[in-house]
């Protein structure tokens, strides 16, 4: 491993959102439910959040899913907002769809605002997302009593193709903690 790559790996490790620790408030509770804003996304190119069936007590595991994207996805920039009184960010993890060399960054820049960048580097091929493809997973703890919106900010979110041009997509968030 070259020195620059070690430096990059260290920076990435610092930037990865991993606060760790289990939620005390969620001890003994089932995983929090997640309800997408549009239960059945249409047939066009879409990036949507989808609740994962697997989750620790009180946690919401939410997949970031791309579907119907015509060209390979070289990178994704994602901005997600929520009410920090209701949800606590735990971590974000890129999926195995990305190459081992891909850059994985996620940080809660402000309380309740997450910035994510998962991207291949250089000429590395992107991720095929014509069918449903999980690009990564967000994990949050439901610390409040009310349901909480997970809002994607489309003006600061983007899929990018290998030629550097944005790929059109509709962005769909959802809610954590709605009644099942």
């Amino acid at each position, binding site marked *: 491993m070259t020195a620059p790559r070690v430096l990059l790996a260290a920076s990435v490790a610092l930037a990865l959102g991993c606060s760790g620790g289990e939620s005390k408030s969620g001890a003994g509770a089932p995983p929090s439910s997640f309800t997408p804003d549009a239960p059945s996304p249409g047939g066009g190119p879409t990036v949507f959040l989808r609740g994962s069936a697997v989750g620790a007590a009180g946690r919401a595991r939410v997949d970031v899913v791309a579907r119907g994207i015509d060209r390979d996805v070289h990178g994704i920039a994602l901005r997600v907002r929520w009410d920090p009184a209701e949800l606590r960010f735990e971590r974000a993890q890129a999926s195995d769809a990305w190459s081992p060399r891909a850059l994985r960054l996620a940080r809660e820049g402000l309380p309740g605002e997450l910035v994510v960048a998962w991207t291949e580097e250089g000429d590395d091929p992107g991720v095929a997302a014509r069918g449903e493809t999980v690009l990564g997973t967000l994990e949050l703890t439901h610390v409040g009593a009310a349901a909480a919106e997970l809002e994607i900010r489309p003006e*600061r*979110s*983007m899929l990018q193709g290998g030629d550097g041009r944005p790929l059109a997509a509709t962005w769909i968030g959802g809610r954590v903690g709605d009644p099942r």
Partner: protein
Amino acid sequence: VLEEATGKDLGPFFDRWVTAKERPSVRIGFTPTPGGADVTLTKDDDLPMTLELWLTLSGGERVKRRVDLGSRVTRARLDVDPGASVLAVSASPRHDALVEVRSAVHGDLDFDGEADGFDVLRCARQVGASYDPKPAASLWEPEVSFDARCDLNDDLTIDDQDLAEIAAGFGTLRAR
């Protein structure tokens, strides 16, 4: 001769653009305000200069304003149409050849005052690229495939060191 013809003291101009040995460096910071932005320009010397700033508005329009910089720190209130909000403040790219202009926010390459995924994606594709002056036939046909903003350490190559620099500032957001 020029001073006699114009009747002006051109000493500062020659100090800045003719006899100076280093390219001036300017950092742009801003805070959006209703109908404008409070801009802070920080440079590394006291020589005067003028910059043309480009303000990108929420509707996609671009407003241009000239600002005179004197001392190391210059603060200016720049007004746009009432009701418009300023999303980004950058300098005219025509300055790039003579002035190193960067955002005051580390890792913010699009001058919106935040270091987020847009900045990372801009440069990730460029990893492996090196500056090649051969395609440039003249001053008016510069090499445009090399994104110099991604070359944070100015070594004419965009590599993991530059991405590490960008990653170090990643997630710096403007307070709501």
